[in-house]
């Protein structure tokens, strides 16, 4: 993968709003932004209602993903352009799902909703009507998804990249600073993890930094190019953003997203936790 195959610019998007076979999809946790105006022709996916299992603590399985995309009118051969708020966190999470379920052509809109807004590009409140399709996902590609036992095994052995803010990494905060801080689990990070906040990879307007800048950031942070990598955050969406950078923009092999992330790890009994600003020892 590379920037050209994984990313489209806002200019490209605006020119291709009506191109047949291109489907724009806004993905967010809070979809009121979509309801108030969205990229013309875009459909919406609600990260919680549409992409999480309503009962089990997991995301939608292969069959649920098939039902969802069929119902929304997305075909296997469509080019899917994902975008959203929060600097594309949830769009990046959805991108990771589309890859996990083997969708052929999926891209992120560089800068997401923010860049679109700051550029003063047009919105629409019209709800697009798309005919139902019969979408067939592939079996989940677990080479891009990490589970907890593998994460514990990775301590001191693989690159662990904690993409939360420095205060969350150190254990001084338990959630991003726009959320109330009460939580049940322990604070801190997985020992030996390096801390490269997701935000390092993005410009102020939400677009991704250049490949050269990105390679420098992870290199200076101590990412070992010879090792496999697992990225995590609190619930797995900010780490999808970093997974996208490492795997899809920089083309690094063997990068997994640990979607259980700190809400799972910080609640496990008996696993090691490091406190403070340093990675800590295995």
């Amino acid at each position, binding site marked *: 993968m590379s920037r050209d195959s994984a990313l489209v610019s806002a200019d490209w998007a605006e020119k291709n709003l009506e191109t047949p076979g291109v489907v724009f999809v806004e993905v*967010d*946790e*809070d979809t*009121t*932004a979509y309801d108030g105006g969205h990229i013309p022709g875009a459909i919406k996916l609600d*990260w*919680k209602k549409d992409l999480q299992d309503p009962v089990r603590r997991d995301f939608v399985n292969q069959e649920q993903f098939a039902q969802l995309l069929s119902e929304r009118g997305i075909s296997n051969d469509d080019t899917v352009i994902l975008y959203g*708020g*929060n*600097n594309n*966190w*949830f769009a990046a999470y959805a991108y990771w799902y589309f890859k996990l379920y083997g969708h052929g052509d999926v891209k992120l809109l560089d800068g997401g909703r*923010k860049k679109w*807004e*700051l550029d*003063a590009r047009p919105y629409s409140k019209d709800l697009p009507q798309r005919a139902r399709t019969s979408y067939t996902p592939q079996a989940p590609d677990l080479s891009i998804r990490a589970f907890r036992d593998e994460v514990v095994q990775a301590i001191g052995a693989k690159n662990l990249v904690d993409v939360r*803010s*420095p*205060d969350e990494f150190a254990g*001084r*905060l338990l*959630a*991003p*600073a*726009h*959320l*109330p*801080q*009460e*939580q*049940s689990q322990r604070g801190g990070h997985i020992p030996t993890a390096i801390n490269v*906040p997701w*935000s390092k990879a993005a410009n*102020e*307007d939400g677009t991704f930094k250049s490949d050269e800048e990105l390679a420098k950031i992870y290199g200076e942070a101590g990412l070992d190019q010879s090792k496999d990598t697992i990225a995590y*955050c*609190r*619930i797995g*969406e*900010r780490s999808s953003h970093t997974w996208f950078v490492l795997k899809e923009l920089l083309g690094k092999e063997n990068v997994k997203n640990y979607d259980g992330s700190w809400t799972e790890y910080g609640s496990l009994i008996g696993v090691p936790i490091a406190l403070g600003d340093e990675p800590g020892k295995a």
Partner: protein
Amino acid sequence: MTAPNTAAGCAAPDQSAPLPAGVDLEKETVITGVLRTTTGEPVGGGYVRLLDSSGEFTAEVVTSPEGLFRFFAAPGQWTLRALSRQGNGDLSLDATRGVNEVGLNVAA
């Protein structure tokens, strides 16, 4: 889950909603205000980011239609950085525990 606002996700909550009942102002450091143009018009749909004392990104919210924004931070030195269609703006503050109300303006 009985806690009303432990937000299962990470997206910024509705900025115009009143402070959730579960928020303990003895413990929380809330930074809040209204984003306005230099002529005093509220700026809805603007982006306000919270930067820590080293200038590092900490969080970002979208202002409500009334221009409201709110962060849950910690006592100390912070910078607010606003981006909007109407222009950009910055403000530094020394936050203390409880509610810190600030005025933030954008200019083209």
